[in-house]
């Protein structure tokens, strides 16, 4: 009788302790300003990713096509200046919005793939960088540190002058958290990187779908190495080109990755705390998240696993 009562008491104690721990976790608001922010901006058919380190260092990778959209988003985010702008390659759906963003936020550093294009958009981009006085950085194999954030640059292979083939790859590291942004890299560019820099690309926490999920990019073979937990596809609603392709979606599904899409969900924001805990929000920029919203989000993340 006494043993049974003691057993029930111990069980009750464990349940109370568990609930207490759960409550303390749920009631702790996220402070985006003290975390790494990765925001996939909704630019329609194109790419634009904004990064902010916990120390306030800012990076913009690509700027979508519309000329003023990204600069407006940066205003909304309260950005005063950019530290680094990377143009993954010179196609207009990646650099169109950079012209205005560079003119307004005068990045200290600018990097592109070094493969000149003949469009007016590309010429305006370079003129904007020139006027802003940004330091040009070559896209060589190198690491760029911005506070506690490290960007490993994967250089364009230069086996021809094709813009997609010569995308710049960027692998972000923050503690144990790792994310990769490979521009519009084609399958052969990805294979080149995997043959030279595979250590940077395995077991990713977050992955930006290459080339908006086109069938020329991600494959089950590539995904089997990258093994991303989450994939974000930056793509326009009802786009002319049929992105994302069924083959790409199947490649993400083949590794069990959770898929987010800017055409369906708007901005996709990932907030990474110093311990590596990553929270994903859709349709909004990160703000200090209310405990109840965090609890709902956690629950939906949990249910998504099934």
């Amino acid at each position, binding site marked *: 009788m006494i043993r049974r009562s003691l057993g029930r008491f111990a069980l009750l104690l464990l349940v109370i302790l568990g609930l207490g721990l759960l409550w303390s976790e749920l009631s702790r608001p996220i402070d985006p300003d003290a975390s790494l922010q990765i925001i996939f901006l909704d630019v329609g058919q194109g790419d634009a990713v904004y990064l902010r380190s916990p120390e306030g260092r800012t990076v913009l990778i690509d700027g979508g096509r519309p*000329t003023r959209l990204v600069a407006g988003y940066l205003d909304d985010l309260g950005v005063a200046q950019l530290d680094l702008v990377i143009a993954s390659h010179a196609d207009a759906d990646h650099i169109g919005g950079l012209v205005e963003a560079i003119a307004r936020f005068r990045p200290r550093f600018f990097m592109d793939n070094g493969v000149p*294009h*003949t469009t007016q958009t590309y010429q305006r981009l370079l003129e904007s960088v020139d006027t802003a*006085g940004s330091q040009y950085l*070559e896209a060589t194999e190198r690491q760029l540190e911005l506070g506690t954030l490290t960007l490993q640059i994967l250089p364009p292979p230069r086996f021809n002058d*094709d813009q997609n083939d010569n995308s710049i790859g960027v692998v972000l590291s923050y503690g144990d958290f790792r994310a990769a942004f490979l521009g519009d890299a084609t399958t052969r560019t990805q294979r080149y990187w995997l043959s030279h820099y595979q250590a940077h690309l395995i077991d990713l926490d977050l992955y930006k779908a290459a080339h908006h999920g086109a069938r020329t990019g991600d494959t089950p073979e590539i995904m089997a190495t990258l093994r991303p937990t989450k994939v974000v596809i930056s793509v326009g609603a009802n786009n002319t080109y049929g992105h994302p392709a069924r083959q790409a979606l199947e490649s993400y599904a083949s590794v069990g990755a959770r898929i987010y899409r800017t055409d369906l969900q708007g901005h996709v924001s990932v907030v990474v705390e110093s311990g590596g805990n990553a929270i994903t929000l859709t349709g909004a920029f990160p703000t200090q998240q209310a405990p109840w919203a965090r609890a709902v989000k956690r629950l939906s993340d949990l249910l998504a696993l099934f």
Partner: protein
Amino acid sequence: MRFTIDRFEESWAVLEDDSGDSFPLPRRLLPAESQAGDILQVRVLHGHNRSLVILTRDPGATERQRTQAEALLARLRTKKADPGGDLKL
């Protein structure tokens, strides 16, 4: 008037006009040897019931534009020399 081929996407070409605006056009409507980066001269012949649009590759204009872009890139490279290697920004 002239268009520049910004890129190809599946069966589409994305063309840029002189103002920097871009639009897709079926790839099969372009000259057979067209490549991304080509500048195309546009000539329109208007009739009563139809108009004829002629797109002609212009290698000379393409080369001049590429040279101009390379010069701009070279200017950025020399204006502030890249120290190279790993950097703390």
